[in-house]
């Protein structure tokens, strides 16, 4: 290197790293401190509402991965309607793109708000029927439903961190603390082959 700047560039670089010694690190200690995700987080699960669902299978058709499949049968009470016997989502295939939620006309499908849904066994990835319903630990995210956005906490932004040292919510309320694992659904159906 021709020191055409006589090493000044090197010294300026050293000053920058030295200045960083006196700045706050931006690390978040994950399990203890959690960042609040966006109100529209597309978590890695689906939240289904079996009352509103009219079994029109639009979501199954729009899913680019074919992760949703349903089984229906004729409703013995009134022959015109069909009732759903099995609404199954393979979260192993689901890429949480949200196209199904966008295509559902009856607001029966939401993306999940939690992002900690890893499983140890592949069969557990397949959730069906009441395993999909909204519950205390399985909150629905406000993705594609702007009316639901107001009852979600504000997202923690890194841009506010430097200015007013935004308080990072201690663990728990920011995200749904999975209570004791919900009892495995008691459907008699054998787990999907």
């Amino acid at each position, binding site marked *: *290197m*021709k*020191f055409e*700047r006589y*090493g*000044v*560039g*090197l010294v*300026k*670089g050293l*000053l*920058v*790293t030295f200045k960083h010694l006196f700045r706050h690190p*931006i690390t978040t200690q994950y399990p203890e401190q959690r960042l609040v*995700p*966006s*109100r*529209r*987080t*597309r978590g890695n699960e689906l939240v289904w509402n079996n009352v509103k669902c009219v079994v029109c299978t639009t979501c199954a058709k*729009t899913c*680019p991965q074919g992760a949703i499949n349903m089984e229906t049968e004729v409703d013995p009470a009134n022959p015109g309607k069909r009732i759903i016997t099995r609404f199954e989502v393979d979260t192993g295939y689901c*890429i*949480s*793109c*949200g*196209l199904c939620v*966008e*295509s559902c006309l009856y607001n029966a499908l939401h*993306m999940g708000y939690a992002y900690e849904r890893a499983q140890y066994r592949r069969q557990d990835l397949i959730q069906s029927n009441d395993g999909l319903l909204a519950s205390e630990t399985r909150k629905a*995210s406000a*993705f*594609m439903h*702007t009316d639901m*956005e107001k009852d979600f906490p*504000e*997202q923690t*932004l*890194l*841009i*506010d961190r*430097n*200015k007013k040292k935004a308080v990072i919510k201690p663990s728990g309320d920011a995200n749904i603390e999975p209570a004791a694992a919900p009892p495995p659904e008691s459907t008699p159906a054998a787990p999907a082959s």
Partner: protein
Amino acid sequence: MSLNTEQFILNIGPSHPSTHGVFRMKATMDGEVIVELEPVFGYLHRGIEKLAEQRTYTGIIPLTDRLDYLSAMSNNLAHCIAVEKLAGIQVPERAEYLRVILAELQRIASHLIAAGALLNDCGAFMTPILYMLREREKILDLFEMVSGQRLTYSYIRPGGLAQDVPAEFLPALQKVVTDLPHFFDEYDQLLKENEILLARSKGVGILTREMAINTSASGPVLRASGIKWDIRKADPYSIYDRFQFEVPTGKAGDCYDRYWVRMLEMRQSLRIVEQAIQQMPAAGDIQTKVPALIRPPVGEIYSRTEVPKGELGFYIVSDNSIAPYRYHIRGPSLLNLTALRDMIVGWKIADAILIFGSIDICMGEVDR
């Protein structure tokens, strides 16, 4: 007495710390100097062009996120512009402005990774790339607020956006836009006149003007060789003709110029975002009425947009069905690699890694 030395073949292999993904360079080495080099790729080939032929035009959007996974928003925009040209869909004003803002933010985020990774290949122990990732985090926060995801947004739809931006998006965007220039100055102070970086990258891996044009390079690689060709200026798509910005070009076409062109482009993108914030209408619908299954008329279209890596072109042949008949993706990273061999032969292995890093490719786009 001539020392009999032997050349040996070194696989700078698919899993190597600085090949930006699964990319392999079969280098024939004479000691440290590279005598012959053959790039080998295809390790990340998922057959996106074949998959796209069985999906609806909206179903292809999640596929385009995974093309150049560092600039998913720009890929979404490129795909949607192609479909809008093909099917003749109009996009409302407010959606156009928001799209430009998101695309330019994505360009800054992608260039941040490119410059940081270049320094990492050059041996600066993680410091520059960690500063860069911290700044990129601020942009990813905005994308997460808008679309719900941090990397694969699938947020832009043919005809506008999936849903409107939340209320607190604009104040947060304003903060990011005022904060970034301080970072750019600090980063220049760290690296602009750093003698070691100058020694390592000035005059290294030169891509001449003719070679750049002949090997259809595009984006910062082409501009660093001194050719003022930016599709946002030459063939303005969407509403890019309403903004004032320069197209920075380099002189020698060496690694330093490619790095420096990207740093200047980030400042220009910031200028565009600022102008777009002022000119944006406060309210307005976000997506035109578009049928759920878009059926473009029979015909074909080649539409190209300026993504951070270069010119991303989609050649779509439609036969009036809900899925394209043929969906070809012109990936800028693949074509920027054509000149890799001529740029690297003659240099040492340390330079080869640096030259490869300065081209800034993304394997998702090379292998498709």
